């Protein structure tokens, strides 16, 4: 089942000294439960693409469909996670994860129960009355993820969501997050500049070119491993092959 259908997106910026084409002819589809990474040279418009899918920005032309429904603005079907966890320091963990539901006036008993279950499953329930400053960076990022999943989105967008963490925390957090996403069967699109991170979590990697960015290739990642995790697949012999391939693709246009 196709959850996300991105069709022929083009984005032009208007600036005082001219027009910049950021994205051109971007089309792809994402199936339910898939994890798609988007990699590309810095400044190529990866985050712009994510903002368009999220409905934060209107594309110059082209359309985005979620479950067959055209995206016209911010929708409750999409969860968006930024680089910083942005936990509100004056709220407890519990009241932080409820923020999305609160904003959408959706604090129904079922939703609250679901979020509490998420907190319990991912070992954050005992910290529910603590404040963000009392938690480690990795835990904070997990809280931010649960805050995003609380609104039960059809698609989760990760915008460099782990790059603010130190390397070691990052490896553990990506592992934890991957587990959560697979268990909850969340369709995810992640933008990253970190190629290994992109490969380690993805079912598909979309490689963008330099500006104006077009899709160079959509690479299917398959480690032929039932118990794949972002950590153990890094040791898989195919990992370095994928890496070399993407590296070459990214460097080839100079």
């Amino acid at each position, binding site marked *: 089942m196709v959850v996300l259908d991105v069709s022929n997106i083009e984005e032009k910026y208007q600036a005082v000294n001219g027009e910049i084409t950021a994205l051109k002819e971007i089309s792809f589809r994402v199936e339910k439960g898939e994890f798609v990474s988007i990699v590309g040279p810095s400044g190529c418009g990866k985050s712009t693409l994510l903002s368009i899918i*999220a409905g*934060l920005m209107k594309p110059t032309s082209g359309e985005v469909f979620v479950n067959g429904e055209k995206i016209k603005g*911010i*929708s*409750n079907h*999409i*969860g*968006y996670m*930024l*680089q*910083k966890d*942005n936990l*509100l*320091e*004056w*709220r*407890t963990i519990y009241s932080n994860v409820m*923020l*999305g539901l*609160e*904003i*959408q006036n959706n604090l129904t008993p079922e939703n609250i129960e679901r979020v509490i279950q998420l907190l319990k499953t991912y070992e954050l329930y005992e910290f529910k009355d603590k*404040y963000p400053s009392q938690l480690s960076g990795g835990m904070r990022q997990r809280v931010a993820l649960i805050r995003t999943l609380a*609104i039960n989105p059809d698609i989760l967008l990760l915008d460099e969501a782990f790059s603010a963490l130190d390397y070691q925390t990052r490896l553990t957090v990506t592992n934890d997050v991957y587990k959560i996403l697979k268990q909850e069967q969340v369709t995810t699109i992640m933008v990253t500049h970190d190629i290994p991170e992109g490969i380690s979590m993805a079912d598909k990697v979309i490689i963008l070119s330099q500006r104006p960015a077009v899709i160079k290739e959509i690479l299917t990642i398959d480690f032929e491993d039932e118990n794949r995790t972002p950590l153990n697949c890094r040791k898989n012999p195919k990992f370095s092959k994928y890496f070399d391939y993407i590296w070459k693709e990214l460097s080839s246009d100079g």
Partner: protein
Amino acid sequence: MDNKQLSKERVIYLKKEKRRKRMILIWQVGILVCFIAIWEISALLGLIDSFILSQPSRIWNTCINMAQNDLLVHIGVTVYETLVGFTLGVITGTVLAIILWWSRFISKVSEPYLVVLNSLPKIALGPVIIIIVGAGTEAIIFMALAISLIVTVLEMLNGFQNTDKEYIKMATTFGATKMQIFKKIVFPYNITTLFNSLKINIGLSLVGVIAGEFLVSKAGLGYLIVYGGQVFQLDLVMASVIILAIVAAVMYEAVVLMQRLVMRWYGH
């Protein structure tokens, strides 16, 4: 932490810390005591003219004397005027800041006016205020308001506009309305800004009130100071100034206490 088994180094460190704090306090009190003593002695020895510069013992006697008469009334009047001016300034200022935050257009249009009004010494408006609202308590409160209002607007607006953009983006991705962004992100984010502006404002309002009382009044500490000056009773002037300093400090500390309570409630 195991407090029973403190190491030798720890005990020495704690002792040193304690001694350092005590020394600071001793010096703080000592300077005041020396100052008063030197003042009193020089007045007794006739080194300074106690008719012009007054003298601690005479100030003390004046205070006692005033306390038996209508000192509390004067303090009450000044405090009342300050608190009314302060509250009005904070509320109006915050509301105006919210409007300016809400509309970039209005904020851009009003920018030059705010800059000019901010640099204008508001006391210069005194005669105008008296003519418009009449020579009474209203004029004094208005003066306090005039002095604190623009500062509040600028301070709060600056805080609102400098709210972490990432927080706002996060709320936007959940589909938050501008009202929700203000209530859930921008305002709580600026609680500290609000209290900083309260701390500045309580002082500014008092400046406005005293200036107002200099111009028009029949009671209040500012009135006592002007009256004392006019009848050449410097003891009364000095006593009033000292009482005013105490009143100002108490009001400031009240704001600090309030901040502590609110912050605890807000989980900072």
